Every structure is written in C-alpha cells, then in structure tokens.
C-alpha cells in the first residue's frame, strides 16, 4: 500500500465532497492510501493569489509541502490548480537554489525550511504512470460501454509544457486512455484543449467573460454528442457544473450536460453507487447519465 498525504485544496472538500470521497475510495482498489493531510490550507490559488505576489504564492505553497516533508510522505492531489501551485513550487524550489534561499528566508518566520525531499503528484499521473491503464481496466465491474465522454484536461495539468512531465499539450492522449479503459468512448470535440474560463482570477473578476468561454466549450461538447464532461480539476468542475446554471440565468443557454470528476466516473465503473460518490450534490443532474449506463 503506497501512502500519500492527500492534499484536498478548497473546492473539492468545501463544495464537491463527492470528489474527495470518490478519490479515496477508488484509489484503495489500486493499493493507494490517500491519508488525511493535517493542517493543509489553500494551495493557494495560482491565478488569483499568484497574480498578487509570486513569492508569497510559492511560500504559502511551500508551507504545505513542508508540512508533508516533516511526515516524509509524497503529496497526491486531484486539482489542476493545486497541482500548479504545489508541483511548480516544489519543482522551482528544487531547481533554483537562489529562489530556495529567498523562500526559506520567508519561511524562517514560521520556523520552517523547505528541504526538497518529497514529490508532488496529481492522482491522474499516479493512475496512468504507476497503476497503468491495464490495472484500471481490470478494476472495472460496470463497463461504461456506449457512453460518450467529453474530456476536459484543464490547463494547469499540461501547461506550461516545459514544466510538466506529460508531453504533448496540444494532442495529449493519457486521460483519453484512462477514460477508454472504463469502456467509455472519448469523443473529439472542437477546441478540446481550450480553457474552461475560470482560472487566473477571471471567474471572480469578470464572471460573464469566464462563463462565455465555458459556454463555448459546453456548446462544442454537446455538438459532439457528449453524454458527460469528465475533468480532473474541481475548479474546472465547478465552472462546468455550476457554470451551466449561471449560463442559463445570464444567457438563456441550456445544456444539462452532467459533469464528473474522473474519480467519480471511475467509481461508477468500479461498481460503487452514485450516493457514495456524491453525485447527487451536483448542480446538473446526473440521472440521465446513470440511466444510460446502469
């Protein structure tokens, strides 16, 4: 059983607890133990907080990393935003001694020092590279045959590419493979790699513009006959799910396209019931989707 400190971030535990629960439950099937990460905070939000002060952003990220360093555990997380904050903070601090010195001088105020002794990994990375699509496939009890999935990778998982390990940011395949391993079909849709519109503080700054981007994505997904959107980022998840309600209110466009985090989709395929995955807490009803596959 490989143990990780499970970094929750904000949106998953505080808005979509089903994502948190499904991650823990589905991972157990692969001998991955996502443990309580005591005292973790906001990553903090890379676009919004990083825009105010990059050093403070890295220092607050490093605070979270240092908490896990003390326990000697690698961090696993399920949010692209948290991934950007913590993976990049970890990576930059390890690679750049000057920056490390600068950040450690900030951390000295709270009697903490960044060592660079652990790794920060996105659960999707662990699933693809450590577990592998074959084992994911083996864990399936309820194949999702006939389900058209519109995959939303999210930006901070893949970009900037020089600072990531996933390769192609234009035509990536790994997430598609993980979805196809569950028996579903990944549909290609226009502007698949486009941003959901929420990041960079734009959702809180100019929500109409953020929703306009989201609207375009949802439209393209529906045009491609998608039954569901699957993501690996609770913030994208919120934008795509909650956003549909707001789009309906503001622009009158209705999609009713269910939105699932990959771990929730995986949970369904592994035979878990929708309640224990928290699917009933979504803004957009997942009932039509469940009717189709169950």
């Amino acid at each position, binding site marked *: 059983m490989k143990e990780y400190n499970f970094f929750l971030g904000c949106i998953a535990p505080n808005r979509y607890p089903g994502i948190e629960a499904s991650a823990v439950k589905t991972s157990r099937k692969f001998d991955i133990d996502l443990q309580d990460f005591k*005292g973790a905070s906001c990553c903090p939000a890379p676009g919004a907080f990083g825009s105010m002060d990059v050093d403070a952003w890295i220092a607050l990220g490093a605070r979270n990393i240092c908490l896990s360093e003390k326990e000697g555990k690698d961090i696993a997380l399920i949010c692209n935003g948290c991934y950007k904050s913590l993976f990049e903070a970890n990576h930059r601090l390890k690679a750049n001694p000057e920056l490390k010195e600068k950040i450690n001088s900030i951390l000295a105020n709270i009697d903490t020092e960044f060592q660079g002794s652990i790794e920060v990994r996105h659960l999707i990375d662990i699933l693809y590279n450590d577990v592998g699509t074959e084992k994911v496939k083996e864990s399936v009890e309820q194949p999702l045959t006939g389900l058209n999935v519109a995959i939303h990778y999210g930006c901070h998982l893949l970009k900037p590419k020089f600072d990531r390990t996933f390769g192609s940011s234009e035509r990536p395949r790994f997430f598609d493979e993980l979805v196809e391993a569950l028996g579903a079909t990944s549909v290609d849709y226009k502007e698949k790699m486009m941003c959901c519109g929420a*990041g*960079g503080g734009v959702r809180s700054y100019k929500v109409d513009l953020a929703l306009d981007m989201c609207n375009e994505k949802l439209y393209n997904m529906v045009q491609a006959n998608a039954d569901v959107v699957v993501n690996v980022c609770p913030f994208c998840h919120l934008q795509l799910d909650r956003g549909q309600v707001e789009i309906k209110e503001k622009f009158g466009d209705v999609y009713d396209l269910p939105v699932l985090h990959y771990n929730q989709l995986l949970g369904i395929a592994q035979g878990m019931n929708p309640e224990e995955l928290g699917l009933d807490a979504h803004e957009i009803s997942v009932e039509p989707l469940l009717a189709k596959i169950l």
Partner: protein
Amino acid sequence: MTSEGMRDPKHYQLGKTQFDPDLIKEVEARGGKNAQMCYQCGTCTAGCPMTQRSGLRVRTVMRKANLGMREVLDDPDLWLCTTCYTCSDRCPRRIIATDAIIALRNIATQEHKVPMSMIKIMGSIAKTGHGVPNSEGNMKKRVLLGLPENPPTTHTYPEYIKDINKILEVTGLLKIKEEMEAESQ
C-alpha cells in the same frame, strides 16, 4: 482638446513619449523570463481564448511591457488572462507570456492596482486558510458521505492559520490588503 479638430497647443511639442526601461527588467525578475526576446509574431494573441471576447491582447501587453509603457499596469484587461498558458506553449521565443502577465499583475498589485476580488480571496485565506471556505450546506453533504463536517485542513486545525498570516505579513501583502480595504471604504 480645446475645440473640435484642434489640439491643445501644449501637445504640439514633440518628444513626449516616455518609456521606462526598467519595467521589462522587473517583469523578467518576477518570473517573466525571456520577455525581452519577444519578436511580436502574434502567436500568443491568436491562440488566446480571451482575444475574441475581450480587449486582452497578449502581444500588445508584451509590446508595452518591453517598451516600458507603464500604462499597461492600469489596463483592466490585464486581469482577464485565465492563465491557460496556451500562448506560452506555442511561443517560438520560449517566452512564458502568462508568467510575464502575472509579473505585471504583481507590479500592479504593489501599486494598489489590483481588483478587489483578488484582495477578497486573500482575505479569505488569511481568515480561514481557504480561498473557498466550507459552508453550512456543504457540511451536511460531507456528513452524508461519511466525511467529517470539516476537512482535516486549517478548518479542523486553525492553529496553522497564524503561519499563513505571518507569510502574508512578511511578504507585504497583508499591508496592501489593509490599505486597499481602507481606500475602498
């Protein structure tokens, strides 16, 4: 303008355009590496999902930053970048334009030119440790799923919040927040 078609005579004088050569150096120092290498090809603007729906023009931002036109810091569109990094991944000059924009936002923040929505997020982190804190309704959802009402984060262990505030204090952000909150009152 004094009257239609006429300019104020004081504008007739030449040599009024002023550039601040230090601006781009500060951008590079704050993480916008290679920013001076921009050769204005427009790949960034063309790939940017905001271009077609807003006034944000990444190439123009880079141009102004490079020439040292500090007016770029006052541009409200500077805050429309969703940090999707598409411009950066396609840049043939290996400029991380997104990081350059973030660096410009950092500089703008120092000058109190940051939207209050950002300051609010900082306030929430300072208070609870979370940018998006827990809510009553969510607590119920958590319990139904067999999770504790509060996650094992600063919500359960508020003693860590003081560390967060210390970092905000030593990086000067807390002061900016307080000043801006006072200004907006």
